[in-house]
């Protein structure tokens, strides 16, 4: 997933980075095809070049050697609301057929079955970043037809990168549709992982597995302790 997400990023883009796999994807892209990617973390580090895997969104390694550090009012007003962010990464407990994301509650808001962390910056990232990428493992619980709570609206979701394939938002219907598969994965496996009748693009892209170079960077340089990589 990290390698596929990395390939979505274009050299020179300004990316709002989240922790975990999005961070791996961005730093992989920066070390391969997109050396001029500008990484902005919501904690205020701009042009960060972390020399270790950041364990939180406010890791001190994001500051050391970055181009700029600003307060959070500047992050949200001068960068995000100003329209300077081209790509935003989001994830969530639930993603629905329209790309809406829930990171707030499972069950009713006032009597939640599970209380999740909440929005953080996810509401405004979804509203202001020009293109949203979601990285999430596929499962029927995680991909219901409707989320229990819309934390981040789905209008700007471009792609959902999962462990089985990639979904895209169809502009006509507003639905997420299957756009690409990993080698050896059947369409039925993806359909089994979502809670609505998933449509497919007429021609599905074949997603290449990670190259030896990508694997080596991910496993030996970016996440040697396997905090976020599972294999």
């Amino acid at each position: 997933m990290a390698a596929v997400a990395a390939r979505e990023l274009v050299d020179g883009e300004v990316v709002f980075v989240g922790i975990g796999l999005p961070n791996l994807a961005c730093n992989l892209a920066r070390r391969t095809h997109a050396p001029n990617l500008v990484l902005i973390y919501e904690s205020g580090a701009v042009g960060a070049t972390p020399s270790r895997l950041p364990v939180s969104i406010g890791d001190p390694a994001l500051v050391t050697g970055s181009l700029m550090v600003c307060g959070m009012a500047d992050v949200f007003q001068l960068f995000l609301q100003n329209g300077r962010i081209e790509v935003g990464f989001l994830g969530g407990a639930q993603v629905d057929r329209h790309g809406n994301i829930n990171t707030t509650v499972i069950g009713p808001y006032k009597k939640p079955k599970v209380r999740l962390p909440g929005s953080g910056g996810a509401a405004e990232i979804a509203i202001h970043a020009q293109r949203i990428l979601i990285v999430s493992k596929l499962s029927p619980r995680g991909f219901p037809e409707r989320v229990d709570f819309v934390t981040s609206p789905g209008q700007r979701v471009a792609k959902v990168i999962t462990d089985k394939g990639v979904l895209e938002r169809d502009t006509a219907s507003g639905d997420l549709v299957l756009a690409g598969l990993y080698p050896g994965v059947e369409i039925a496996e993806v359909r089994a992982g979502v809670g609505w009748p998933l449509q497919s693009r007429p021609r599905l892209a074949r997603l290449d597995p990670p190259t030896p170079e990508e694997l080596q960077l991910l496993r030996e340089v970016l996440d040697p302790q396997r905090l976020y990589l599972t294999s």
Partner: protein
Amino acid sequence: MQDAVARHVRDGDVVVIEGFTHLISFAAGHEIIRQRRRDLTLCRLTPDLIYDQMIAAGCAKKLVFSWAGNPGVGSLHAFRRAVEAGTLEIEEYSHFGMVARFSAGAARLPFWTLRDYAGTDLPRANPRIKSVTCPYTGEELATVPALNPDVTIVHAQRADAQGNAQIWGLLGVQKEAAFASERVIVVVEELVDERVIRSDPNRTVIPAAIVSAVVVEPWGAHPSYAQGYYDRDNDFYVGWEAISKDRGELAHYLDEFVYGVQGRAEYMAKQPRLMERIKAGEQRCAGVNYGY
């Protein structure tokens, strides 16, 4: 610390301990727990472990926040238990919403406008998120009310005796929170001479004019970090998952590391290998010429 909390933090207060991952005054939070403050409205973008501890200790009546997780790890279980049981009142925003609330408070305006929340369920969950029609363009903009805490506590790397406080590294929303507040406690790693502050005035984030008390408390932000002084104690953040999940473990933690010590010096003395493990390396900046 004991005197500052006794004087400036009162039962029922709206209390802010800010710092985004960086410079979170755990020392102040622990002292508030030791002094058994009650019915506090705790506000922070990220409640973090410190508010989880204060909720578990019974200090909080209400929590105002925008992201309540254990950063990079998972959940805050005392917070989750309290919300799922309905024993803690919550008022929830997004990060931008909280930042905007502090900005309005700091500018002494009644509210702040932002382009946010369209298509989200947050305004339904929190009726204090409203909207206004722009008188110039007719655009509908979201609004959030000013947040003016009774007391804001900020941890900084250094300050002089008057409270002119300098911060570097992540700045979070400390400046806005401090200016929005009725009273401000500055907690520092190091007390420095006023000449040190004057040699580098651009680094001053909080001026003495708004500071009520200055507390010198080295290592006072542990297990969060202070850039240039010590790293985040990630092992502790990871370990909190198991501690906070179990009420007994959590009570035991508070007994040993909060109620069981007089203050931060004793807290550090209980963990003799900690300083060595998290002490920061050297990475000096180039320096600038302030001459004219």
